[in-house]
Every structure is written in C-alpha cells, then in structure tokens.
C-alpha cells in the first residue's frame, strides 16, 4: 500500500509542470524541492516504513519468545 501510495504521488508530481528547467532543458520537479514539500513526502514515507519495520521487529521478538518457551518445555529442538 505504501508503494502504491508512493507511486501514485510520484505520478502526480510528474504532472506538476514547473517553469524551472534543468540545464539540458528537461523539466524536473525543482519547484517541489524549492518549496520544501519534498521533505514532507520523505517524512511520510519514512514514517510508514519505520512503522513496518517496528511491526516486523515485534513479530520477531514474539516468535523468539514462543521458541524459547517451547525449548524450555522440551517441545522443540
């Protein structure tokens, strides 16, 4: 979902035609950068990604706890 959102956003940005052009005449999103909006995008994506990693981490710890318990109760090798 984060990917879909990210790419939708990126697709939208492509349609934001700025009047600033790069040196070889190809338009890039320099307007977004100069207005600082790009930083909001980065932070949003990082937050979602950090949330995902925290989820994986808590899942990992929960599994480790069960494995340790099983080992103690001799259920698992």
């Amino acid at each position, binding site marked *: 979902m984060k*990917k879909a959102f990210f*790419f939708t956003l990126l697709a939208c940005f492509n349609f934001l035609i700025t009047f600033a052009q790069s040196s*070889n005449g190809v338009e890039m999103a320099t307007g977004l950068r100069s207005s600082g909006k790009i930083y909001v995008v*980065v932070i949003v*994506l990082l937050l979602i990604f950090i949330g995902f990693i925290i989820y994986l*981490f808590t899942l990992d710890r929960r*599994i480790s706890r069960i*494995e340790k318990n*099983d080992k103690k109760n001799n259920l698992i090798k």
Partner: protein
Amino acid sequence: MKSYWWKFLGAAIVFYTVIAGLLGEVPALPILHESIRVVYFHVPMWFAMLLMYLISVIYSIRYLGSGKTEYDFVAVESVNVGLIFCVFGLLSGMLWANITWGDPWPNDPKLNSSAIASLMYLAYIVLRNALNEEQSRAKISAIYNVFAFPIMLVLLFILPRLTDSLHPGNGGNPGFSGYDMTGGMKLVFRPAALGWMLIGVWIMTLRYRIRKLEYRKDGLDY
C-alpha cells in the same frame, strides 16, 4: 536466524534509499523526468524476488536429497515471500509504465514473460494446496520448483532480449546499468537492492519460524 544485526542493516539501508532516492540528484532525462527515481524501488523488488526463488529452489533440491521437512518449509515460505515482491514489482512497473509509456501493460515481451513467470510460481502454491499428503506434497512441489526456476530465468532475462521490447535492458534499449545510471544513482540503487533483499530474507525467516512452531505444536516430529 535470531541475530538482529543484518535485519537492522537492511532496514537502515532502505531507510537511507528512501531519503536519498527522493532528495538525491538524478539525471534529467526526457520522458522519464523525476520518475527515474522509481528505479530505486521497482528493480530492488525483482532482486528480492530472485533471491527468494533462488533460496527456494536450493532448499527444494536439498529437501529432495535429505527428506528433511524444514527444507520444505524454507522452500515454500521463500516462494510465498518471493510472490509478494513479484506483485510489488509488477504494480510498481505498471504505474511507472503508465506515466512513461502511456500504457500500464503495452503487451511487451518482458512484461508478458514476467506475467507467465508469476503464474508459474502461483501454480506452485496451487499445486501444494492440491496435495494432501505431506511427503508427496513436498516432493512433487520440489520437483516442480526445479523446473520452474530455470524457466523463470529464461522468461525474464533471455527471451525479452531476443526480441523487440520497450523495457530498459531489453530489445536494444540501454539498461539502467548502462550509461544512464550515473555514479550518483548507483550509490542509491545498489544499496537499495541489498536492503530489500535483506528485508525479504527477514520476512521469510519469520514465516519459516512460525511454520516450524505450528508444525511442532501439532505434536509432529520433524
């Protein structure tokens, strides 16, 4: 499997590539414009998928040699995670294609081949679900895996290069590993591929460990 360093390394690398991927400098190319940044995510999805399928076929072969159920667990969970990355690769590719080629699926050889490869691995899952007995399920799906893997390689990497294709790296187009991937981009792209591969392995190990626990709790000896 219980050590955390490589898991956090993968997370940190992807964290870095999100920041550098959006804020870093990219060459200004026609048609692509800023969307060239999608390469930092779309291609690593496929790298992660490839690694997963490679691990899967290795463990399928190991299972056939040893008969150890854990190897079968690794094989199936690797395909499961590989399929997830495959879906994200396809979705990200379709979104990217839509804004650059004007069509999410222009019936291109590379795209059609990747669809066939995806269906092959979905068929692996369907095959497993169709077999009730544990040993025959593991053995038959392992043999299927051994066939599916090289066919997937041919479909994704050989066939599209033999014919006309829109996709970068095939049909005479410059790949992003060619002169269009600047040194600056390589600094983000290569870590991104590594980071997502590490995260893929992490997710696979979690699923594998859960499967082992469920199996054990059923009182079965493995």
